[in-house]
């Protein structure tokens, strides 16, 4: 077990170095650095050169990366070039938004994916299966940015149930907090539940062929009990894998939803700093999202063990 964790940590380290290094070099190689943003359009080459010198952008890329890395090891993520504030503070202040949005959207997509996936697997090829699948693909065919606007029109303007934009922190009351995140989370869930439902349906169909399901039926247990208690858990391994990948991506990848709903999350911070070439901020965000990704995947591995005692045994025995 300890060996396993050590192995995972080593891998985390490798991934962190690889991802931050590649990002750093790529963003640095993009034309037009932060100096152009600071100087503005009506500038001379000389002014740009001065700003670049002031910001230390004239140094070698490798040197700058190593400097950054050295500072990070000491716990200093540096200062933003554009916003002139601490990168760590900017990230921490956006963390609650991102995490809450993520949790809520994951919950919503599971609430859609699990019942529908189970029902479709129970009666594959039936009318309800076809209807659910078509609806699901229909939702996949609507890009997130259109889905978001459509939901705003429906729920904020016509029904006036939910706020259109903005984020209310928990300090404003848990109800207001959830209300402000419901639409964006729903927008994400509308797209993300589809693959979850599909893999669950497919795995569940396989599970329902298993003898132990036949055995459970021969015990005279009711169908819903068999589906959810006997079949769901062994059918959810692929679902968990996909969910892990989704969560990993959502940490920094919900920028479109964050833009539309004006949520101050990590995704928006990242895209803004990429376009502004705010290197320190980009690196801070990437560091955060990468760590989050790796942790989520580690959690997924742990969850496998929780869901399937056979894997648990393997891990404890050290064969993992």
């Amino acid at each position, binding site marked *: 077990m300890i060996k396993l964790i050590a192995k995972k940590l080593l891998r985390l380290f490798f991934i962190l170095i690889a991802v931050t290094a590649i990002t750093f070099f790529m963003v640095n190689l*993009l*034309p*037009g*650095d*932060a100096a*152009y*943003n*600071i*100087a*503005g*359009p*009506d*500038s*001379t*080459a*000389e*002014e*740009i050169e*001065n*700003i670049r010198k*002031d910001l230390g952008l004239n140094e070698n890329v490798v040197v700058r990366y190593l400097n950054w890395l050295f500072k990070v090891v000491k716990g200093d993520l540096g200062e933003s*070039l*554009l*916003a*002139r*504030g601490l990168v760590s503070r*900017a990230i921490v*202040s*956006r963390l*609650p*938004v991102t995490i809450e949005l993520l949790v809520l959207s994951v919950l919503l997509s599971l609430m859609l994916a699990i019942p529908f996936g189970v029902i479709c697997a129970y009666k594959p090829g039936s009318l309800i299966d076809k209807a659910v699948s078509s609806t699901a693909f229909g939702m996949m065919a609507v890009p997130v940015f259109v889905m*978001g*606007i459509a939901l*705003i*029109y429906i729920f*904020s*303007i*016509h029904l*006036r149930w939910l*706020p*259109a*934009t*903005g*984020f209310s*922190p928990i300090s404003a009351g848990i109800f207001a907090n959830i209300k402000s995140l419901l639409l964006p989370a729903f927008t994400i869930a509308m797209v993300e539940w589809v693959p979850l439902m599909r893999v669950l349906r497919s795995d569940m169909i396989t599970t329902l062929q298993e003898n132990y399901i036949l055995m459970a039926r021969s015990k005279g247990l009711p169908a819903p009990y068999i589906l959810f208690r006997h079949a769901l858990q062994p059918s959810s391994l692929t679902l968990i894998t996909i969910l892990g990948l989704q969560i990993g991506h959502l940490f920094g990848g919900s920028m479109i939803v964050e*833009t*539309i*709903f*004006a949520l*101050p999350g990590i995704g*928006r*911070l990242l895209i*803004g700093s990429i*376009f*502004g*070439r705010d290197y320190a901020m980009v690196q801070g965000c990437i560091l955060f999202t990468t760590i989050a990704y790796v942790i989520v995947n580690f959690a997924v591995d742990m969850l496998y063990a929780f869901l399937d005692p056979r894997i648990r045994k393997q891990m404890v025995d050290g064969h993992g």
Partner: protein
Amino acid sequence: MSFNTLKHLIPVAWIKCCLLIGVAAFGLCGCSQDAPVSKSKMSKYGGTLHVGTETGFYGFDIFGPGKGGELNPSMATLNNLIQEPLFRLDLSGNIIPVLGLSAILSDNNRAWDIKLRQSVFFHDGTPFNADAVVLHWQRQLDPDNHFTGRKIFQAIQAVEKVDDYTVRFVLEFPWPPFLKLLSDESYLSVFIPSPRAVKEGTHNGAPVGTGPFKFFKDSPTDGFIVVKNHDYWQKGLPYLDKIIFRVLPDHQSRYASLIAGQMDVIYLDRGNLIQKADKAPSFFTHHAKGSGAEIVLINMRKPPLDDIRVRRALAFANYQKQEIKLAYGGILPFARHPLGEAFECVNDAYPEHDLEKARQLIADYGKPVIIGYLHSNTSRGKVIGELFQQLCKSIGVDLKLIPLPANGQIMRVLKRDFHLATWRILSVNDHGPQLYRSFHSKSPTNFTGYSSTLMDALLQSQRTEMGPEIRKEILCDIARLINKDVPILYRGGRRRYIAASEKVKNISDIAGLTVNMATAWIDSEKKSRIKTHKTVQKVVDSFDCPDPCKDFEDTDVIKAKILGTWKGMDDWGAKYKFIFKEDNTVRLHKTGRMKKTVPYEICSSKVYFQGRVKLVATPGTDKNKMEIQWKRDDIQGVVVFFKGD
């Protein structure tokens, strides 16, 4: 020669007072149900205003991103609430005192002595005096600080303290636009920050000024919050307790937030949304008229653009009217030169859209023309690119589109690595310095590579010409020369729009592109009257008066407001005169074209009548100003009319 330009300065308090009286007498934007002053005065105070903006706030210290040139709309508005300049311009171009009281030009025209307002304090308690002004300017002028905004005020050599409440600006040469630029609210340079905050390095994130509102909090989750400055030097102001600015990047969700009642005021720059808001009875739009223009830079260093025939062909192919309509939804004025909507030059030599002439010129040139076009990678940028590509295709020019994000585009322009690039001429109170920087052959920011001895001479002479009429003519000459030699193409003028819920009162337009919210107040009685969007849509789409008219407006008040003669000019330069008569008819004149009398009808605070197009007049805040919307088929627009013969 010595004269005091501020001889006839009207005390600012008096102006505000007039404004208030105007508001009380005529109601706001047609809401004739406003209670009399005495009654509503109490309710004017208090309340929180929610403002939705597109772009964020970069910080308030002069050193930092986006500080060199024009501030973005949200920054400009917010900054204007916290910090104050020495002077401002009113709508008709008069200079009004703010922190400065008067300005006296020296005999040699090379120094201004500015008297400062006394007993004004910054929000942190630091007194406002000559030291604060001098410190602020010396920071900018210090060459070691590499302040990118310095070039705008290049003519200023030094700023000195004369006594505690007098400062002297020393100029390198006689510089006529000095005071106008010093009143230009789109530059951070003109706002005076607290010396203590600057010294402590906190000003960038937590600005301290003398303005009606104080910085309270800036957080990504709660927004940028300013609160009432109870010790504001202008007694009785401001009315609001708090203003919260939130960044809502997406246009449609920003508009949705207004409709859903989450926001009271939003910035808008999408034609379809502005028109929607404009037509909705519960919302009002205001626009700030700017000068300058949306343009296309032509890199004259690169063949085939060094050939005047190719450039003129592009100018003839350019179809500004369509671009304004398709890319901007008809919200920008037509730009015939960069000097602004209000600046009129006769015979401006603007190359009108004419594909035939363009084809002829390209045929004359004889060689295939393949050029690249840098435009922004936004959805609007795409429309702009595709439109011009299509036009170029029709005259036989192969236009390659290169969509880039802002800094990529800036970089390539600065490196002179482009053929055509979308750009803008900043909206400023005086265009002399900017034109000089852009078109003088020796200027380092002459991106087009335009070089003409005549242009150089004109630019040089406008710089120091103190006679306003002569100088104006020189500027027009420059505009004509630009239109003739075509270093740039025009894509539209500049305007900024905001839409506000009807409960927000007294958001006034001020010169430049800044919208002033300092004197706004909230009419709490109007809060519950927001109609649902659907009904609004129905009324507006047909442009017909809702029948039966159930609204509670007193038609007589509206009628009293509109009776008389109104004049206006549309974006294509056609002049109109409408005479509203007592007998519910209106006489329509279009110069040299049309004369006819039609009936009008008053309903929902608006006046409906029909000429060759459907028209709706909306009498506004200003008793001498009125907006008239027109619509034919699916083309529509707004013309501002002014009272008078």
